[in-house]
């Protein structure tokens, strides 16, 4: 399967709905990325940093007590053990190398949970580039730890107070910054969304998750898994895990979205489960919108999943029924957070807790083999969880 097509389409989804001012730069970026894809030197350098700096490969850990509780054999892909504490570093390392090749000196990024912001600030520090991160006012409050980290790393965090004051508005503001600073700035997008080539490029950098997991499970079990489970915000950790398994038709793919207070209420961020097709942030995909095409407010306890859009490739995988998209509520996610902490001694990010929580609903059989993407660690979320449990 070789999607997207030349213009970045996954079936009817994707593409590049970009303001004209950005177009020339986006085209240049695409060229650079295509060149890098075929360049052995690029991958050698990228893999060097993944290994020596980010600490890859990370383990595929057999979670024995979790398996006892939920059934079958459950393995965790330990993205939480990467440097900076999540899968986001896989992508920021790749993109900063492209930025370097393009001669850019300034990086901008949007962030929700702050994990991408931290990962961007980290690689910018390492490569000696300026970094500014856009973050919604609401998220700055609930992810304060990551704001400190970004500041320590030398990045400037710009508080975004427009719209819903969360990830989507941070992305709007980052795009506006890019429009102004189009000559010297590289926009380091944190998920598989945005204008072509971002959805494909970010996927290609995150695919290391699935590539490793595939080898590791074959080594450990001698067979492919029955199920892959990952949380979906924009969808980068999920596509990273899924992508190397797409042609293994027997492997079932589950993307877990934020059900918030329940998908029958208006307070959720379940884009694929409840959305309709539209255009947001440069790509055609499922989005949460009202009848007139206005983007809806979303809610999730997890800042990283609190986004009304989703990567176009997920929309495609949903429509061709290759992957299933399901939801988990705030309450269930917090349960998942506690369960993994107590049973395995691993405190997961609230985003990843959604994937853990879904295990309970899967009714796994004894011989079923499941890989869960543990996309990040939960230090940043302990305050949120403590507050939630007090309620």
């Amino acid at each position, binding site marked *: 399967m070789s999607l997207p097509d030349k213009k970045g389409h996954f079936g009817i989804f994707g593409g590049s709905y970009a*303001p004209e001012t950005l*177009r020339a730069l986006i085209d240049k970026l695409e060229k650079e990325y295509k060149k890098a894809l075929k360049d052995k030197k690029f991958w050698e350098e990228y893999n060097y940093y993944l290994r020596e700096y980010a600490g890859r490969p990370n383990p595929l850990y057999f979670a024995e007590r979790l398996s006892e509780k939920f059934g079958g054999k459950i393995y965790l892909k330990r993205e939480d053990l990467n440097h900076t504490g999540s899968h986001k570093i896989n992508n920021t390392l790749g993109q900063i190398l492209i930025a370097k090749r393009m001669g850019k000196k300034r990086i901008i990024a949007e962030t929700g949970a702050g994990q991408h912001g931290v990962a961007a600030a980290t690689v910018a520090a390492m490569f000696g580039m300026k970094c500014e991160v856009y973050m919604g006012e609401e998220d700055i409050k609930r992810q304060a730890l990551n704001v400190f980290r970004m500041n320590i790393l030398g990045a400037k965090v710009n508080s975004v107070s427009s719209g819903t004051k969360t990830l989507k508005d941070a992305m*709007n503001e980052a795009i506006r910054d890019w429009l102004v*600073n189009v000559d010297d700035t590289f926009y380091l997008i944190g998920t598989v969304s945005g204008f072509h080539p971002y959805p494909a490029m970010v996927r290609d950098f995150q695919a290391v998750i699935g590539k490793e997991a595939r080898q590791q499970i074959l080594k450990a079990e001698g067979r492919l898994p029955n199920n892959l489970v990952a949380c979906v915000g924009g969808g980068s950790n999920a596509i990273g895990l899924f992508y190397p398994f797409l042609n293994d038709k027997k492997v079932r793919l589950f993307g877990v979205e934020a059900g918030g207070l329940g998908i029958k209420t208006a307070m959720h961020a379940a884009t694929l489960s409840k959305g*309709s097709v*539209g255009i947001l942030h440069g790509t055609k995909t499922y989005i949460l919108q009202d009848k*007139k*095409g206005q983007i809806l407010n979303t809610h999730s306890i997890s800042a990283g999943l609190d986004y009304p859009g989703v990567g176009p490739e997920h929309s495609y995988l949903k429509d061709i029924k290759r992957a299933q998209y399901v939801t988990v509520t705030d309450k269930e996610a917090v349960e998942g957070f506690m369960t993994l902490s107590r049973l395995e001694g691993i405190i997961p990010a609230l985003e990843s807790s959604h994937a853990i929580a879904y295990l309970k609903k899967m009714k796994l059989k004894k011989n079923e083999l499941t890989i869960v993407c543990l996309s990040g660690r939960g230090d940043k979320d302990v305050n949120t969880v403590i507050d939630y449990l007090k309620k």
Partner: protein
Amino acid sequence: MNRIEKLEKVKGKKLIIYLMAGDPDMASTQALLEMLCTEGVSLIEIGIPFSDPIADGKTIQLAGERALKNGADIDKTLKIVKAVRKKFDTPMVFMTYYNIIYKYGFEKFIANSLKAGLDGAIIPDRPYDEDENFGKVAKSAGYDIIYLTAPTSSVERARKMVEKTSGFLYYILVKGTTGVKTGALNDYKKAAVFKKMGKRQVFAGFGISKPEQVKEVLKYSDGVIVGSAFVKIINENSEDKKKMLSKARNFVKKFSKEVFEYEK
């Protein structure tokens, strides 16, 4: 010949004014439109608010938020256009984001626009090479889709846009969003390059807020587009509707003088 094509036959430079539908309210929008027609502006751009206007600066973002609160949408605005159209022949186009039109259904959008007497649409986040069917449907219906070129546009893309745009070509004067500060009009000369590419009239906008800027920009273009500065005047005077109209009128008069009395 549609109204924008007719405009092309009119001698002299053109003045285009942008306003946001529903800011401060729909009735004011109608009054402002009629004022603009009476004042003889060449063409009017009517913004339809969208929750996530990535190409707009603070002024138009906030106008959009106010307009959304007032319930401004495509249908309500078309109703006003229809009423104004009964009295005036001034070309009017929408300026909005693609999702609004996509969700409405673009065939229905074009049909209803034409029925109301709206002449076209400017959609900053739908380039000519996405959803090409939309362009085709518009063309065959005689509905103008106006494309935006930028200082960063490649020659190759600019040529395509000159060929595909109908009515006129919109030249974005600055790298940035609408409403950037004055003095940043560094790339305006390129408008002349696009003008030479085809017979299309080229109107230049983004960042024009003062009548003094007009002369220089008109050296290289066929007309100027004023948006954020006009929206600001409306907002600053929205408490008193009468005052708002007269301030807005004075604002337009100053620009009209510069544009319509322009001599090389």
